[in-house]
């Protein structure tokens, strides 16, 4: 199952990221993973949060443009070589990665992927015995 990532448009000026984290903080939303992509003029924040719908709602209420993007999350052992193995499967399955980021949990490491064709990638990788995490599983990590 793919997971909904929250993607937020941010103007490229000081304080805007902090304004966003403040909105999430006062609404008690926990950010599990975050990555920031930027151009010279604007940025896009991509996040995995504990409550996706609350996050989008409170962001919209506070005049942020926030949308949901499906991403695939895989848990791997937090040891040398496991990411390499995972990516070999992607290569064999001809899955193109648009971007990825990661976070380390207590026992495992979690890799978040945005791919060109989420459904196809998920099916092919599932066939290789790789199960992507569900929204509930990621919240429980």
């Amino acid at each position, binding site marked *: 199952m793919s997971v909904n990532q929250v993607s937020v*448009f941010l*103007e490229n000026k000081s304080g805007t990221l902090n304004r966003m984290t403040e909105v999430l903080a006062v609404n008690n939303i926990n950010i599990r993973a975050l990555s920031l992509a930027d*151009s010279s003029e604007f940025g896009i924040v991509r996040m995995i949060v504990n409550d996706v719908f609350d996050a989008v709602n409170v962001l919209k209420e506070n*005049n942020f*443009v926030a*949308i949901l993007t499906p991403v695939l999350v895989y848990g791997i052992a937090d040891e040398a070589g496991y990411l390499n193995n995972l990516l070999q499967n992607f290569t064999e399955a001809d899955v193109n990665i648009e971007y990825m980021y990661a976070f380390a949990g207590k026992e495992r490491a979690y890799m978040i992927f945005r791919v060109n064709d989420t459904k196809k990638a998920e099916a092919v990788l599932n066939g290789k015995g790789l199960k992507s995490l569900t929204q509930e599983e990621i919240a429980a990590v």
Partner: protein
Amino acid sequence: MGNYFQEEIECAPVEKIKALQDELLPKQVRYVWENVPYYRKKMEDKGVTPDDIKSADDLYKLPFLSKADLKEAYPYGLLAVPLKDCVRIHSTSGTTGKRVVAFYTKEDIDIWDDCTARAIVAAGGTKDDVCQVAYGYGLFTGGAGLDGGSHKVGCLTIPASSGNTERQIMFIMDLQATILCCTPSYAAYIAETLKEMGYKPEDIPLKAGIFGAEAWSEEMRRDIEKTLGIKAYDIYGLTEISGPGVAFECSEQRGMHINEDHFIAEIIDPDTGEVLPEGSQGELVFTSLDKKAFPLLRYRTRDICTLTREKCSCGRTHIRMAKPKGRSDDMLIIRGVNVFPSQIETVLMNNGYAANYQIIVGRVNNTDTFEVKVEMTPDMFTDNLGEVQARRKVLEDGLRAMLGIKAKVTLVAPKTIVRSEGKAVRVIDTRKI
């Protein structure tokens, strides 16, 4: 075919209108000559006397009045009656220098109310309607003008004035307002707010809108019409001549009928002052035929547009003016090119953005900088950096195609561009020339 407030004059044969103007203009010129020394001097300087004005065809002989004259004659220099005969003033929202103050007698207001009543009836208004006037009340002519017309038609009038959008929406929904009168930018804001609150066009009781006092594009009209589920009518006017209702749109929505029994319109070459033939684009000039307190002759509006006498299927015979491309003082000259904010609005709306933008013009090393700030919307946002850049580029290309010069488009967060609840602040020009 449509409904008329004063059918006999609104649909009179063209010859009858001409005959009326031929009768009224010489009288009005003599009235001004005798009562407004400021204009009499201008006529004398030009070697014209009231005897030279025998019919409306002689109008071209008269000197022009401009905003500069109004500043010079401030406050009483163009007043034609004793103050005790005046019952009200209105004043323009003037951006620089002295404000313009216009005076009205009781009669002047009565005629003005007739004009706005014609506009309301042309938009389908009857005494069964609930007309919410969300133009500002006060010195601005918008509120008082439509209020007066609404009373004449017999609508239930909600004098909401501008601002306090939540309250506007409460009245629209609770009192089932059917006609909304305000500036187009405020109409767009109300529409956007209703949409955000989850109201669909079919839930909104409004059926018509009368929107004027600032330039707006056809795209903006379609957008407002769609969101509110209404037909949106343009209305034109200026404080110097009376206020909204000098011209108004009929159900055909193809230009605004000028109330020719009260005003004569001309199109002139703004550089030479020469009168241009029907259909030419130029500066719009108005002469009031029966104003008592503040009777301006050949007042240059600075609005750039065209006139047409082509037959209108609504039945009205009065000449129509095209939507002005913008006041010549709204026009920006950037890197030597004429730019109207309405052109930028057109590009934005064609590309799926709302008309929330701001133009920022500056000057660095003797070259003009030209930036357009556009608010990001959830529809236009994607998670992909390259895609957002590409969409930004599409806007830049569209602006270049429309204007012929390059603009830098900056995407900004929603609701960061200051919205006025009256007129929108569209341009920030920091050039010091």
